[in-house]
């Protein structure tokens, strides 16, 4: 099952790259550097999903004390931190030629940096407590509280004046650009969602094996 998901993910990522470079057109104002969007946007949206799953799994853990839910939360947090970190890095690389700066403390960038630091803290908290039950309980609370930053990140471009452009996909009225841009973006988004599911499935398997070995 996990192996099949891995192959499906590999095919999805390959098709996504072909579409980002072979199907999507050269953007009129930004030129080819705009192709960074096909990796940057899916990474950020997949990290929202990762942190949403973490929050739901944390609620399930606190209600039922189910170790499997805690393992899903842990794995999802780890993959989410990696994705949001890469999303920030690729956004910074995209920002330099288009905005003229690697970083600016505008509302979107600052709120996403806070999101990254909070979930990094979540992983550090897990690692710093020896008792697995206590680690799971404390980190579940932090995981739920940190999820409140996700809508703040998403709507920051509407609530404040920012250098960052408004969302491309998840906005009122839907995507308004050309379908030749939309399809490569959707395919890459699906590929990164598959990659998220694949990494979480494998990480959960490792965490379960670790728990069995420690028992």
């Amino acid at each position: 099952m996990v192996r099949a998901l891995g192959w499906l993910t590999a095919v999805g990522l390959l098709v996504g790259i072909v579409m980002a470079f072979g199907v999507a057109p050269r953007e009129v104002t930004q030129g080819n550097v705009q192709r960074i969007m096909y990796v940057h946007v899916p990474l950020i949206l997949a990290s929202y999903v990762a942190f949403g799953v973490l929050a739901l799994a944390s609620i399930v853990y606190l209600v039922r004390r189910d170790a499997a839910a805690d393992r899903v939360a842990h794995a999802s947090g780890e993959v989410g931190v990696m994705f949001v970190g890469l999303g920030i890095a690729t956004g910074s690389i995209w920002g330099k030629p288009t905005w003229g700066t690697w970083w600016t403390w505008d509302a979107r960038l600052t709120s996403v940096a806070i999101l990254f630091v909070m979930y990094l803290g979540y992983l550090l908290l897990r690692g710093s407590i020896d008792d697995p039950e206590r680690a799971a309980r404390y980190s579940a609370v932090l995981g739920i509280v940190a999820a409140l930053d996700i809508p703040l990140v998403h709507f920051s471009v509407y609530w404040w004046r920012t250098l960052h452009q408004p969302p491309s996909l998840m906005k009122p009225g839907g995507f308004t650009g050309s379908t030749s841009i939309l399809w490569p973006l959707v395919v890459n988004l699906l590929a990164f969602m598959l990659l998220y599911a694949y990494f979480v499935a494998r990480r959960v398997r490792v965490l379960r094996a670790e728990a069995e070995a420690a028992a």
Partner: protein
Amino acid sequence: MTADNWGFVAAAYGLTAIVLLIYWRRLAKQERELEALNRSNAERSREPSSSGLPRPEPSSPTPLQRPGAPRP
């Protein structure tokens, strides 16, 4: 005409590919190590003990951990 800045495109895709590949390899390494550990634990539990008595299952409680056992 805007400059294409292919170097930035290569940096973004390259960095993403490298980080994802490192994480994927780390997961594979962890899985291999845990499989080896669990295999050796299973083999050790199958070996007869020197006293001739069967070894307890790894997860079974020791006499002192059993309910009602006297505390030291």
